[in-house]
């Protein structure tokens, strides 16, 4: 290993290690949180989970939040280089900015994959242990982790350009404003209900169990397309980051 990749590995080995460890602890952490929320003892929650009695929705929701929250640590690999001198040094090399940004994106992608793999491996090991000791098939969350991986990739595609352009702190604040504006627009849409959009959505929700075309055809298709959308947005985000990097670097030491 040499060059930029070696530098990134040395600088961020702690984050990489933490990412690998997240998978091992995500399910136990979800169960602990669930026991706290429900006010039940941990052993009862684990028992319910093993015997498939626990509310699957609650576990899925807790894993969802935990996975995405810990995933934000991936942006921290950008913090270590937020210095103007370093940016100028990078820019002084031929093809420096592109290769620097590319390595950052590759590292963040590798960390996302590492997290997915560690989650899936721990899931499989828990499954093996429960089979060997109790002869019980416990819930497998592999497909949830795969979905979360793509969501995470999509969120990073939005995160990274903001962080590079405005710095981590300012970037997070601007990103938050961006999401608040989106949220407000959504609320206005719900309240204004143009062309009965909400009525239509409510109709879909009410017909959840029926064989509506939306649920049998459109939703699976959107689910299937999303991985490609997130991969494409990640690539597009890389192109944008290459363009805005120097503009952001001007503000690093202010």
């Amino acid at each position: 290993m040499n060059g930029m990749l070696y530098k990134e590995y040395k600088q961020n080995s702690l984050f990489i290690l933490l990412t690998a460890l997240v998978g091992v602890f995500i399910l136990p952490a979800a169960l602990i949180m669930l026991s706290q929320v429900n006010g039940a003892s941990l052993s009862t929650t684990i028992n319910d989970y093993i015997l498939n009695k626990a509310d699957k929705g609650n576990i899925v929701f807790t894993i969802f939040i935990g996975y995405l929250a810990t995933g934000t640590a991936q942006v921290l690999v950008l913090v270590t280089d937020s210095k103007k001198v370093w940016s100028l040094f990078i820019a002084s090399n031929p093809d420096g900015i592109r290769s620097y940004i590319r390595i950052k994106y590759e590292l963040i992608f590798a960390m996302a994959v590492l997290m997915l793999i560690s989650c899936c491996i721990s899931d499989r090991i828990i499954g093996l242990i429960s089979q060997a000791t109790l002869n019980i098939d416990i819930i497998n969350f592999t497909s949830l982790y795969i979905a979360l991986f793509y969501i995470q990739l999509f969120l990073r595609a939005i995160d990274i350009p903001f962080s590079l352009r405005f710095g981590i702190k300012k970037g997070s604040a601007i990103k938050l404003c961006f999401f608040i504006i989106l949220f407000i627009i959504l609320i206005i849409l719900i309240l204004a209900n143009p062309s009965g959009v909400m009525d239509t959505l409510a109709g879909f929700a009410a017909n959840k169990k029926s064989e509506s075309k939306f649920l049998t055809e459109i939703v699976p298709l959107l689910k299937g397309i999303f991985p490609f959308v997130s991969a494409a947005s990640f690539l597009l985000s890389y192109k944008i980051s290459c363009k805005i990097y120097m503009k952001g670097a001007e503000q690093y030491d202010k």
Partner: protein
Amino acid sequence: MTNKAKEAKRLLIFIAMVFGIYPPLFALLNGTVGYDNWVGGKYGNIALMLMFIPAIASLLTRIITKEGMGQSGLHLRLNRHIGFYIAALTVPAVIMIVSALIFACVSGEKTSSVFGGCGSAVQKLSFLLNNIYAPVPITAFLCLGEELGWRAYMGKKLESLTGIAGTCVIGGIIRGLWYAPMIAKGLLFGNEYGGYPYIGILLVCLCCIFEGTALTWLTIKTESVYPAAIFRAVIFLFAVNINALPVGGFAANLAKRGMIKFFPVILIVYAVAGALCAVMMLAENKNCKAQTKN
């Protein structure tokens, strides 16, 4: 010791490791857990973990021979090679769907019903995207376990010793023989076919030669092992979901006629793809030699 002798020694150690770790583990698992339980049964996860034996063997060989981690193929090299990554995602789909179509036609399916069944066109597309393409990252990781051994280590050594043609043929045979204990136990084809288990092992060896040619081409072009792992992941996911392939009447035919009848069709399509890759590799090799002479 000359360079070639060194490479040969390393290759022999790797092969001894791969074949030394796997059969004893295979026998141990069969004796304790039971074959049906650990291959696709309730302990099916163990079979997936065994895919890492070639990677472990290559790592151990590198440590024993003090070779270091050079040419590990672990760099993504996405830059300028994105086309090969896209090829690794799409070509296996073409291979499997064309094979299924040929099989459906050869086995007497009416042309009108070949594309029928299995829901609407949107549902077929959703099935492909959700069940075959979405799990590619995690499946590619499992395939990486094998490819780090076969392509990134054994392939490189064979290439320096026997050239590209030797790499594809000898490498394919070695890989095919590695699967032999499982084929002999009934993996893929069961155990009720003429010439069992030798015909099954022969078919797998041929498949490994043709598939290996395409994988070697991808690895040489990108100097990375990931496209090969992605290629195999897509093939693997197609194979797992084979009975639900969006080619009408396919499932029924396959259930009736068995995998042993379908496999030669895949082999023919694979052979065409492998031959194309071999021609491209040999032509490039010739050009390189001509340029060095000039």
